[in-house]
């Protein structure tokens, strides 16, 4: 089972993990990664924009790659869009497998992708200033480690 959602609403990790693992007795491990908007650094808010249609397609393509590389029983990816404040949650990736290593690897792989190459653009508000976030080199490097030769 694969769930990909792009939404403005928050999510419930417990409910998502239950939906993921419920009725799938082969599952031994679920790794749920939650990303948060970091606050306390002058950031007022973060607005996330995406390319509707392409985002779901691209995320689905990478989810399929993760399913191809690791023996996963189920996968949930939820990404929020819109205006978020410090401490708000941005993203949930939950990967379920019989064993823990594939679940960890798949979640980390998908997060490295989502944080770098998924079609999202972020605008930061600091007081009255609003600036688009520039793509970062370090994140691109993290994504590169998954390249298959």
């Amino acid at each position, binding site marked *: 089972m694969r769930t990909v959602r792009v939404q403005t609403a928050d999510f419930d990790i417990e409910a998502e993990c239950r939906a993921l693992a419920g009725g799938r007795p082969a599952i031994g491990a679920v790794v749920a990664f939650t*990303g948060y908007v970091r606050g306390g650094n002058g950031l007022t808010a973060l607005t*996330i*924009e995406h*390319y509707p*249609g*392409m985002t779901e*397609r691209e995320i689905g393509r990478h989810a399929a790659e993760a399913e191809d590389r690791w023996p996963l029983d189920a996968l949930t990816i939820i*990404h929020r869009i819109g205006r978020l404040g410090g401490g708000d949650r*941005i*993203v949930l990736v939950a990967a379920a497998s019989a064993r823990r290593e594939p679940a960890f690897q798949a979640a980390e792989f998908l997060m490295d992708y*989502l*944080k*770098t*190459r*998924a*079609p*999202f*653009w*972020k*605008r930061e508000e600091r007081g009255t200033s609003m600036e*688009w*976030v*520039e*793509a*970062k080199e370090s*994140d691109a490097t993290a994504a590169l480690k998954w390249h298959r030769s």
Partner: protein
Amino acid sequence: MKLLYFAWVRQRIGKAEENLERPSEVTTIAELAAYLHSRGEGYAKAFADPVRLRAARNQEHASFDAPVSDEDEIAFFPPVTGG
């Protein structure tokens, strides 16, 4: 063709999307960007530095030498910053 703009490309142009009758000289994404650059102040700002832009053709990442045709959905945006 349908054109979509995201992030500061959208802001500079002042619209998120538009339909365009493809001019006959426009056969690649690069030529489309050059054509749009000539359409006024907002477009000129958005397309001033094509190196800073990325494009997608029919919702898939595409290089600037990719061909375009009348039915395509072409999007221009800054490098994605991820979620």
